[in-house]
């Protein structure tokens, strides 16, 4: 069993601290919900874990390997190991669903033919399998922008699964979706977490969703952890403080 260990992580943007001395340990197979106001540092934390941005100080380790110093090929491998899902889906418009899903392999097995959209048969079968698991196999040849928001987010999940990730980082995965689609997407993330044992870290705006799906909740406020524990331990008072009464 591996674990993600974050020690006194600091991230500054122009002298404002987005994350302040964050220390945290998350184990394989956990599903963690990160809650907090916008600007609390949730998104920054996920981006730091994926190394889309560089930490100001502190360290991130996974299975005793220091992630925060990786460069070049090793950095790309790491990114491929922790798949990201975005609020705006970040799919490639004007390309079909299948190619979008296949683009998930660009990190872990790049070759020059992939720039010509040529992928191996086993990769295509993999992609179709993931789409099938998410009830999207009939959409494989459609352009992504013709799909609904919920479907697009599931395409993004299928793309993430092509990375064969050890960690799934979801940055506000349901913020631009309606309640029905939100449920489908969260169910999918939960299923992946349970069935494949992949560690899932979700930034969530809604406390209700976090309580429903995550066995552990981390509350962030101004770049610091103010709560870390079981959803049942979260008091009314604390959750009001976390959301500053702008609770949804």
């Amino acid at each position, binding site marked *: 069993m591996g674990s993600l260990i974050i020690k006194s992580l600091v991230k500054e943007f122009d002298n404002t601290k987005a994350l302040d001395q964050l220390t945290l340990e998350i184990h394989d197979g956990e599903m963690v919900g990160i809650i907090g106001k916008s600007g609390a540092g949730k998104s920054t934390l996920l981006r730091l874990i994926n190394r889309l941005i560089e930490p100001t100080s502190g360290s991130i380790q996974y299975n005793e390997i220091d992630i925060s110093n990786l460069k070049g090929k090793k950095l790309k491998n790491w990114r491929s190991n922790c798949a990201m899902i975005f609020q705006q889906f970040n799919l490639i418009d004007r390309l079909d669903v299948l190619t979008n899903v296949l683009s998930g392999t660009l990190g872990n097995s790049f070759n020059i033919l992939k*720039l010509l959209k040529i992928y191996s048969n086993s990769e295509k079968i993999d992609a179709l399998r993931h789409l099938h698991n998410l009830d999207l196999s009939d959409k494989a040849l459609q352009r992504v922008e013709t799909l609904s928001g919920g479907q697009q987010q599931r395409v993004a999940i299928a793309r993430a699964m092509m990375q064969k990730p050890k960690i799934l980082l979801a940055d506000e995965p349901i913020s631009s979706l309606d309640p029905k689609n939100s449920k489908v997407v969260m169910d999918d993330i939960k299923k992946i977490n349970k069935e494949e044992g992949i560690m899932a870290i979700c930034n969530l705006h809604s406390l209700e969703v976090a309580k429903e799906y995550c066995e552990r909740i981390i509350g962030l406020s101004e770049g610091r952890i103010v709560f870390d524990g079981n959803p049942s331990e979260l008091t009314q008072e604390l959750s009001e403080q976390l959301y500053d009464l702008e609770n949804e």
Partner: protein
Amino acid sequence: MSNSLLENHSIMYAQQMKSRRLWNFSIIIIFIAAFFISSSVINFDLEKIISGIPRLGDYVLRILPNLDSTLLFENSKTEGSLSYWYFNIKKYLLLLYETFNMAVLSTAMGFVFAFILSFLSAKNITPNIFSYYLVKRFLEFLRGVPEIIFAILFVWALGVGPLAGIIAITIHTTGALGKLFSEVHENTDLNACEAIKSNGGNWLSEMRYGIIPKVLPNIISYALLRFEINIRASTVIGFVGAGGIGQELYLVINFNYYEEVSAIILLIILTVITIDIVSGSIRKKVIGEMND
């Protein structure tokens, strides 16, 4: 309370309007001053223009063909017939074809070079800031020098003929399209790029999947517009010996073969109009494609 608020607002609004009016007024003054300064610099002389206009008419009258409505469809030996006017049509069409090919080739080559360089010279996606400045300045140089200068240079180096023209227009096209393309990249949102980066994709993958699908319609549209421009450019460039119909036009103008001048100009105008219409409708389709 609300009255004083309203009063405050109207005072502030009046002040704002005042400064805005002052600003507009000074811009107009500057513009007028600049107009007079520049017209004195270039010796702008209205009288000269007015007295020159009839001469312009003279030339136009002279190059007009002598067509006789009763002999219009006689053979090329009869004065006054269409085929007498266009006795050299075979040669013209061949040269026009050459000009067309010069435009096609130079647009295609310029497109390829510009496309490659544009990724290096777009600030938001360039792999490193050094190559960004280097390529940007290089493109500026390529489009800063008029193509006619490059044409003179290459005619001198490679001899008279279309090759010099093709190279000259290719160079200018690379510079012009390179700038436009990199601006298109800079206006693209990087969502998809970020996703490719987050899954460990390299720079080439980011460009191929994150940028190219998004910018392609825009880029094709710009390339077609450039092709229209290059048709005209490859005509003009013939004047310095760089091949095509322009070279022939320059010849007949110099030798005062008046009727041939009008024959060639009419052909060029027809060609340009046809190509503008065709490429314009293709561009509309491509842009429509982009918007859906």
